[in-house]
C-alpha cells in the first residue's frame, strides 16, 4: 500500500481538519495554504488616491478564451477582489461577498465597509476549518475598496484570518513579490504609481514577459469610488512605463 507514506503519526492528524496535531497544527489548513501557492499570483497596492488590484492571467493554451479566466471580481460599486488558488473555491466566496454587500445595503441603506466585508468573509472561511466533514477553502483573496473616502486593502487566508496591508501578493511567488514591494513601496504613491508598481512587480518575478493579454488590472479610486476593470489598450499604455521583461533573458 503506497497510500501510507510518510510519518504514520502525522497521518492520523491530517485527515480531519477539526483535529489538532500534538504540536498544535491543523494540517488540512496548512495544505490549503500550499494549494494557494500553486495558483498564479495576484497583487494589491494601496495608494493615496485609490486601490490597485492586478493578477497574472496567462493561459496555458492559445485555444482557451481569456475571458473565462476569473481572477479579478467586482463585488460592489466600491469593492473589488483579486483571488489566487482554487478558482472554484474562490467563486463561492466571491458570491458570498457579493450577497453580503447587498445585505448591508438592504439592512442599513449604506455601502458595506471594506473591513466589515473582509471579516464576514473570513468568518465564513473559518467555519470550514472547524466543521466536521468540511474542507478548507484553497484560496486567498485580496479585498480592496474605498471606505469613508479612504483606500483600504485586506487579505484573507485559508485559516480565516483577516490582515490589512499597504501592498501584498497572494499565490505563486508570494515571497519574491512581497520582498519586491518591501523594497519599492512608498506611502505617497498615487494611483498611477501604484499601477506601475503592481505591473512591474508581476514583470520582475515572472519568468516570461508581461503582456496586456497576460495580466488583469482593476482599480477603485477615491474620487469616483467605483471599481473599474481596465482594457487591454489601457494596460498596454501602462506597460510602456514598466520594464516588462521577465528575469529570464
Amino acid at each position, binding site marked *: 500500500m503506497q497510500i501510507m507514506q510518510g510519518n504514520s503519526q502525522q497521518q492520523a492528524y491530517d485527515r480531519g481538519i477539526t483535529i489538532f496535531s500534538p504540536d498544535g497544527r491543523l494540517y488540512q489548513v496548512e495544505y490549503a495554504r500550499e494549494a494557494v501557492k500553486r495558483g498564479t499570483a495576484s497583487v494589491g497596492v494601496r495608494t493615496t488616491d485609490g486601490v490597485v488590484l492586478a493578477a497574472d492571467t496567462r493561459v496555458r493554451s492559445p485555444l482557451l478564451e481569456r475571458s473565462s479566466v476569473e481572477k479579478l471580481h467586482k463585488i460592489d460599486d466600491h469593492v473589488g477582489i483579486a483571488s489566487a488558488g482554487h478558482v472554484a473555491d474562490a467563486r463561492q466566496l466571491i458570491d458570498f461577498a457579493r450577497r453580503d454587500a447587498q*445585505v448591508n445595503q438592504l439592512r442599513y441603506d449604506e455601502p458595506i465597509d471594506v473591513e466589515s466585508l473582509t471579516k464576514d468573509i473570513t468568518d465564513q472561511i473559518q467555519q470550514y476549518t472547524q466543521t466536521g466533514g468540511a474542507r478548507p477553502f484553497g484560496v486567498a483573496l485580496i479585498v480592496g475598496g474605498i471606505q469613508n473616502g479612504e483606500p483600504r486593502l485586506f487579505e484573507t487566508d485559508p485559516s480565516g484570518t483577516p490582515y490589512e496591508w499597504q501592498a501584498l501578493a497572494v499565490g505563486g511567488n508570494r515571497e519574491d513579490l512581497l520582498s519586491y514591494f518591501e523594497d519599492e513601496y512608498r506611502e505617497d504613491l498615487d494611483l498611477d504609481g501604484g499601477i506601475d508598481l503592481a505591473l512591474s512587480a508581476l514583470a520582475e518575478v515572472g519568468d516570461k514577459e508581461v503582456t496586456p493579454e497576460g495580466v488583469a488590472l482593476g482599480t477603485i479610486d477615491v474620487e469616483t469610488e467605483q471599481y473599474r476593470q481596465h482594457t487591454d489598450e489601457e494596460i498596454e499604455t501602462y506597460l510602456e512605463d514598466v520594464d516588462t521583461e521577465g528575469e529570464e533573458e
Partner: protein
Amino acid sequence: MTDWNHGMDPTQQPSLDDGMQSPYEPELGTLPSSGNDEETVNKTGTTTIGIATDDGVIVATDRRASLGGRFVSNKNVQKVEQIHPTAALTLVGSVGGAQSFIRSLRAEVNLYEVRRGGNISIPALATLAGNFARGGPFFAINPILGGVDEDGSHVFSIDPAGGVMKDDYTVTGSGLTVAYGTLESQYEDDLSMEEARTVAADAVSAAAERDTGSGNGLVIAEVDQEGVEIDTYEYDDLL
C-alpha cells in the same frame, strides 16, 4: 454508555451557516407576530414631536398612557428613550410593541459599534428601524427617531408599515393634528435648541388640551454631538 455527542445524532454533520443576516429581522431575538390590538393593551395615545436644529435635535413627548382611548392607565410614562449614543426614539402606539422595538434597536446599535469600531449613522439606523417595522409586526407603532451624527441633525418618522420619512420637524401620535397647528405657526428653520424646546412644549401642551390620549406633562430629550439628555417637565416650566 457515554454520550459523546451530547444527545445529537452522531451521523449528522454540524451544519455550516451561510452567515447571511436577514435585513428585515433583528440579529438577536425575533419580531413578534402581529396580534391582538385590543382594549386591554396599553397604548400611548400620545403626542410626540421631533425638531431638528443646527445644534441638535429636540424630541418632546407627553406622559399619558391609556386603555381603549377612554381610561388614563398611567400619568407618568417616559415615551422617549435613548437608543444610540446620540439618538433617541419615541414610543408611540402599543407600549409593549414599542418597548420591544427599542430593546431590539439598542442591541443592533451596540453590535454595530463593537464590530465596526464606530457608531451607526442616523440614516442607517432609520433604515434598520423601518425594516423591522415593515409589515407591522409591532402592531401600530409610529415612532420618531431624532439623532445627530457627523452629517448633522436628523429627524425621521417611522410608520407601522415600515415607511421612513426624513423631515426638519415631525409629529406622530393621536394628538398630531393639534400639535402640527402650533408647529406650522411657530417653527422656523433657524431655531436655537432652547427656542425649539419651547415650540415643542407649546405644541404638546396644545395637543394635551384637546386630545384625550395626550396629557400629564412633558418628557423632553435634547440630543447633540455630546449625547442625549432626558428631563421631565410640567407645561409651566417651559411656557
